């Protein structure tokens, strides 16, 4: 069986599974799987760039995805004028002062000659700067959060079209990745993993607690959409007539239409990212990356700057994850900081990359769709399995109730097992690297 045929069959099989969902469950859920599958595929491409191309282990995908989500709020929500007037400028000045403090600390460290004086001077700069920053910043934040806390209580965004937030999400994630990469790259390989794990937790903590920025756990709802609203479609006589002509119910048709609109947008992004990733893989740059991955010492001896190249690919991969995160928040229509769970956003993406075939872009796309499909479907399957197992037990049997309730946690177990089995028996994944 030729490789192309095998790959086509694999993709066809996944497509078949999704189409089956359409027939058995509903076309709405099938389109939901497709939309999230497209986003997952883009995330997997980002992680594959880091792991597959360069062997970098990023355990903070969730953080970059969440930064993308924040970008949607910052770009697309209308600005809250009152909050800006109350304390927006003051908070911004505070942030600038905070950044200046860190810059001052770095400059002190670089300019002074090593010794106790340098350490003391640096601590003094950072300490004084911190209190000035808190003094300016806190009052601003308090003023912002006091403005209509139930409705807004934050600065809002720029009021720009939501699609613009996607590249901006990438930029935010790239900035965070630069900071992490500068610190942890060039050291042992697991340090990067631990550092990214940390930055992801902190990003989520910031989103949850900085209410002036993201409304925290109060969530930002009603984000602008790049596609029409279902309710507008249902009231549009032209749409209703056309749908009626096809013999469809306008309510279901409008929801399918909206999801389809998202799917087209996401598909365009996926194709662009995939094309770029393929070009990168087959370019001299891609070959250099793989050379570095396979033997760092040899690549360094050939004059390649390993740390700089790692930083580059790490930023690129994180930016793609950030963009995918912005797309996901757009699809959800709201930013819910408490919904970011590392097992769901970081490790699931890893399972996608490993199962699909690390180092192969097509593999990542396949993994993205397949694993997302499983993630959605394992819960109902687990539930069904549990009801079969506990069939003989009485309705009110404690064990039966417990097992049925716990079926939801089957997902983690299944994903872990899939990851372990693939790593052990087929480490190159479904579509191996050439």
């Amino acid at each position: 069986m030729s490789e192309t045929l095998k790959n086509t069959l694999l993709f066809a099989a996944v497509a078949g599974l999704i189409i089956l969902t359409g027939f058995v469950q509903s076309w709405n859920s099938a389109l939901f799987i497709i939309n999230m599958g497209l986003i997952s595929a883009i995330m997997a491409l980002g992680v594959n760039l880091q792991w597959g191309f360069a062997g970098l282990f990023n355990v903070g995908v969730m953080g970059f995805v969440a930064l993308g989500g924040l970008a949607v709020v910052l770009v697309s929500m209308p600005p809250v004028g009152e909050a800006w007037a109350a304390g927006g400028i003051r908070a911004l000045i505070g942030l600038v002062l905070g950044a200046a403090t860190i810059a001052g600390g770095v400059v002190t460290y670089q300019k002074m000659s090593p010794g106790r004086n340098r350490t003391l001077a640096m601590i003094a700069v950072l300490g004084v700067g911190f209190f000035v920053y808190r003094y300016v910043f806190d009052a601003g934040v308090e003023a912002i959060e006091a403005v209509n806390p139930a409705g807004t209580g934050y600065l809002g965004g720029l009021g720009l079209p939501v699609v613009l937030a996607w590249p901006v999400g990438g930029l935010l994630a790239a900035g965070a990745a630069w900071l992490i990469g500068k610190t942890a790259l060039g050291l042992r390989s697991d340090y990067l993993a631990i550092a990214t794990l940390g930055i992801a937790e902190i990003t989520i903590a910031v989103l949850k607690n900085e209410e002036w920025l993201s409304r925290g756990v109060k969530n930002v709802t009603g984000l602008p959409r790049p596609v029409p609203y279902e309710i507008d479609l249902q009231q549009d006589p032209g749409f209703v007539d056309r749908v009626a002509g096809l013999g469809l119910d306008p309510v279901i048709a409008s929801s399918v239409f909206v999801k389809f609109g998202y799917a087209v947008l996401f598909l365009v992004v996926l194709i662009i990212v995939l094309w770029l990733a393929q070009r990168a893989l087959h370019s001299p740059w891609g070959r250099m990356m793989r050379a570095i991955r396979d033997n760092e010492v040899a690549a360094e001896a050939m004059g390649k700057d390993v740390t700089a190249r790692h930083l580059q690919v790490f930023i690129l991969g994180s930016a793609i994850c950030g963009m995918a995160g912005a797309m996901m928040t757009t699809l959800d229509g709201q930013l819910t900081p408490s919904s970011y769970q590392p097992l769901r956003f970081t490790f699931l993406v890893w399972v996608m990359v490993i199962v699909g075939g690390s180092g192969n872009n097509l593999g990542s796309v396949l993994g993205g769709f397949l694993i997302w499909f499983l993630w959605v479907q394992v819960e109902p399957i687990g539930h069904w399995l549990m009801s079969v197992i506990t069939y003989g037990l009485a309705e009110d049997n404690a064990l039966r109730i417990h097992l049925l309730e716990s079926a939801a946690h089957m997902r983690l177990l299944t994903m872990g097992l899939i990851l372990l089995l693939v790593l052990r028996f087929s480490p190159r994944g479904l579509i191996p690297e050439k």
Partner: protein
Amino acid sequence: MEILNALIVLANYVLIPAITYGSQLALGALGVTMIYGILRFSNFAHGDSMAFGTMIAILLTWWLQSMGITAGPLPTALIALPFAIVLTMGVMLITDRLVYRFYRRKKAKPIILVMASLGVMFVFNGLVRFVLGPDEHRFADGERFIITVREFKALTGLPEGFGIRTTQGITVVVAVIVVVALFWFLGRTRTGKSMRAYSDNEDLALLSGINPERVVMYTWMIVAGLITIAGVLYGLDKSFKPFTYFQLLLPIFASAIVGGLGSPLGAIAGGFIIAFSEVTITYAWKLVLTYALPESLAPSGLVQLLSTDYKFAVSFMILVIVLLFRPTGIFRGKSV
């Protein structure tokens, strides 16, 4: 008297919680550091293994309680602990057999082992949630306090009090016993010496006839003991929730790296450094300063450097500082 009051408040809200938390982190970090020293990878499943060991202890505790067996003033979980450790040892050895041994034989890159540990983390996490559910459990019983704030106030007549919970006392006592036993084992026994030799130089150790599989087996058994104890102590002191245990991974890693990966002494120092920084940076110093400073200087705000929601940021910042200035850690661990 003012200074005394300040000290008592400081002890009650900063010293005692930080010492307790530091002991728990130190035990966790010892496990990470031992796996790193012997098996040479960062075990991401550590937090969830802790949760798994604690789960076994909780189940045993419930069973003992249902039989009417309690430890009097002490928590019943202490009786369950030794049995839980033995069972967790079994679980760890089985995991090693099924997952890690294959990659060890193949001499796979450390990062592949890290990835396998991610899979193990998923599985353990799923199992714990499957059995106990994702919610919080409190399983401490017996006396709640060694000395309560009210007793202390009555005893000394001071306006500020100072209390020690039983779980805090137990944590420190157990941690000291475990650490002393571990250092005795590593420094004095034949097996312990062979483990250190293997950690220092694998090839030399193999040449001198040390059986690597035995060393690995003992490592997992010790690690199982450490994580079960650390997990049970943490759960008794605070509460048991699977997600919290996963989140403990970051401070534990930070402790191990700050101390120097592979160095047991470093892991203990790192645990206390992280715990003390976390508690002091997120504590609101208003009360202490009001007592300690003259009236004219008394602070008006809370004097809290960071809100408690950012306690993970503290361990992360320390981690970053160490990585920037001294990547091998305070005690010069390995940097393979």
